[in-house]
């Protein structure tokens, strides 16, 4: 992102790509009522394909319920798909709030930074972009592996496990196309929603970094009433910025929180089952490589949510420290009392929660991995008993 002047920077451009992608699939809210039939049809196609695939996999699971390794194979993709539909439903339900978030990001208070601080913001968003690219790349690779897998086998294997009410051999090509389409739809929308969330959270933590610097560099020494008024006003602007960022984080949480909660619940199961599949499948095969890629995608998804949530938490924790690092002892009594009230607020860090139940942080990530490993150990024990 090359920015020639500060004035040319718009926070809403940070998630321009995701906005375009989600608009194409008809889920992003539109301000102006143009092309409504197009968006409606697109959304309808996406939803119909996804639900058909879901029911097909559910049918397969019912058929396979006695065989543990086949069941886990289906359950793996079923859970991913189910989570995706949950997140999509949540996104569709709360999507009007995204327009409110966009309006907030236009507020002047978010643009009170210098050239150097803009550099900090851009680097933060830049790293988020890199991660988004890697994530998208691995998703695309997964899809390619999905499609290539059945074509390499001798029998007419389907890429995804699924029960269909007709003879798959007769309509082999159509079924394959349908399944690949459903996988594409799922990966496309899922990754876009995830990356959109990460970018918004990155913007919030970037703004907080700028606020930290503003607080530290604030000059409190004042000779006379006029300078005192200027200092008071500058401090007031910092407080307003603080409030605006907290408000933004709360709005983001309101929109995405339930989806993230579903993601965490199913990630435990998905990571466990993928690990189990990696044990079952022979090592030197395309399927193994595919499972490794899939495992990486799933880990990346949950880890990134935890990472960005953790960043917001630690950045807001340091606000008090950075305020202390200024020359507050030179300040007037009036401002000093305002500083104490501000410090009281910064004692409580700004956290993002998943469904008000669990906070997004690295501690949660270790908890998820630990649970996955315990379930994996149990599953392995059961499998060894079976065979």
């Amino acid at each position, binding site marked *: 992102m090359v920015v020639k002047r500060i004035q040319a920077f718009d926070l809403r451009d940070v998630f321009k790509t995701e906005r375009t992608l989600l608009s194409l699939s008809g889920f992003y809210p539109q301000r102006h009522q143009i092309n409504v039939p197009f968006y409606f049809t697109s959304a309808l196609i996406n939803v119909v394909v996804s639900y058909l695939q879901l029911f097909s996999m559910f049918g397969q699971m019912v058929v396979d319920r006695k065989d543990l390794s086949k069941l886990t194979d289906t359950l793996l993709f079923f859970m991913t798909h189910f989570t995706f539909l949950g997140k999509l439903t949540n996104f569709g339900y709360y999507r009007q709030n995204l327009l409110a978030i966009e309006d907030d990001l236009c507020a002047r208070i978010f643009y009170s930074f210098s050239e150097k601080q803009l550099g900090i913001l851009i680097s933060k968003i830049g790293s988020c972009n890199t991660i988004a690219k890697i994530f998208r790349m691995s998703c695309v690779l997964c899809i390619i592996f999905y499609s290539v897998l059945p074509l390499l086998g001798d029998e007419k294997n389907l890429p995804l496990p699924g029960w269909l009410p007709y003879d798959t051999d007769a309509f082999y090509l159509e079924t394959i196309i349908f399944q690949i389409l459903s996988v594409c739809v799922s990966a496309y929308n899922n990754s876009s929603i995830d990356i959109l969330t990460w970018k918004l959270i990155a913007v919030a933590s970037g703004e907080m970094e700028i606020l930290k610097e503003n607080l530290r560099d604030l000059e409190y020494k004042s000779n006379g009433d006029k300078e005192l008024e200027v200092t008071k006003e500058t401090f007031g602007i910092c407080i307003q910025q603080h409030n605006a960022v907290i408000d933004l984080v709360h709005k983001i949480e309101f929109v995405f929180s339930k989806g993230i909660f579903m993601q965490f619940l199913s990630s435990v199961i998905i990571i466990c089952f993928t690990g189990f599949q990696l044990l079952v499948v022979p090592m030197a095969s395309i399927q193994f490589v595919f499972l490794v890629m899939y495992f990486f995608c799933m880990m990346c998804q949950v880890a990134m949510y935890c990472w960005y949530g953790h960043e917001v938490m630690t950045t807001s924790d340091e606000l008090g420290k950075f305020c202390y690092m200024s020359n507050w002892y030179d300040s007037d009594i009036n401002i000093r009392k305002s500083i*104490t009230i501000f410090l009281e607020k910064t004692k409580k860090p700004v956290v993002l929660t998943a469904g008000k139940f669990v906070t997004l942080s690295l501690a949660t990530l270790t908890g998820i991995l630990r649970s996955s490993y315990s379930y994996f150990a149990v599953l392995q024990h059961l499998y060894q008993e079976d065979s």
Partner: protein
Amino acid sequence: MMKFKVSGLVADLMPNIRLIQGSGHFMLNYHADNSGALHTLRLGYCCVTLVFMLLQYGCNFVNLVLERGDVNDLAANTITVLFFTHCITKFVYFAVRSKLFYRTLGIWNQPNSHPLFVESNNRYHALALKKMRRLLYIIIVWTSFSAIAWTSITFVGESVHTTKDPENENLTISEPIPRLLVRAWYPWNAMSGMPHMLTLIFQVYYVFFALAHANLLDSLFCSWLIFACEQLQHLKEIMKPLMELSATLDTYVPKSADLFRAPSATSQDNLIENDYNSKNEDLKGVYSTRQELGGHFRGAALQNFGAGGVGPNGLTKKQELMVRSAIKYWVERHKHVVRLVTAIGDAYGVALLLHMLTSTIMLTLLAYQATKITGVDKYAATVIGYLLFALAQVFHFCIFGNRLIEESSSVMEAAYSCHWYDGSEEAKTFVQIVCQQCQKAMSISGAKFFTISLDLFASVLGAVVTYFMVLVQLK
């Protein structure tokens, strides 16, 4: 050529720095003469050390892979490899992140000073220096003792390992292996004679230097923490005189004679001393105004300090500036300590995380090995030796991390326990902001995953004991 002058932390930690440089770490600053030839020589020494370490580590690893058939050997070799992984990690970590270490060492180069508090500052600085030296001696003795113990235990007992009998698959025979400190694969035959002697000497060098690499870096980290803690002690000590000074900034000066009806304004101190000592038994449960409000008397006495001076405070402008500068000194010094602790965390946090990761796995395996101890023999000694060394390393930095947490949170107590109620509005708001800031203790975290404190050590120790108990039951 510029005269080489050291100051701040570098001057205090010079013995540590020299030892670290001597052991082959990539610390290439802090030399009087840093010209091209000498610099290349030192760099060459470091690279040679690195090559030797990696070669021996590679030999250990190859041996691990070769001997993976037998479960006992696999466990023992994994423990050895993990142990030296940790040493190599510290070595490479320092080489890669040496800039952060230099930054931390240079952070205290220009501390502020105030004429009122110079004596206290020097006293705590000397105390910190003494503690840092003592720690260094302990580390040197501990490392040397471990290396010597390791070498001597090599010469005890048989030097064999069990392999499958080539004639009968079900039996195992013992086959002799070279008598060396660490089991490793070498491309030459090191059983006896000259190759054995040379390999033995190389291994002694390897073990000693690997232990030194890890322990010296840990002791550098702990020395930094000692310094930070002593600075916090200094700040706590000067809080009281500072508050008494700023009590003079009160805008309203009450006439102590009217308020407390004391018999004499000037002899307050003497009266109080005599009263307290002689009427000690009478004072139990008796409310005595003079005893209770003794402090106020002293405050009042100070208030009359500049009697007849300029300004509504009863203070000259110069004295007022002195008090304001004292507050500024306190806050700036505290901020400096916060910066130092942040820099320490940035420099060493990731190393601690990696240490804890390898230690956790190693201690789990050691708990398993400990269940196989049958009596007081060489095996028991080596297992217990490894266990004690690993736990001691973790304890080493946990105890200093814990002290930092305790010291930084007790600053609030010191702020509260001084006569803040006597102070001016300015002093009170100063105490308020300081108290708020110090509620949250300063701590070192292992790359934000966990905090270094005695809780961490307790959980590690608890985990090892739990694994041991469970495994003993399963046997």
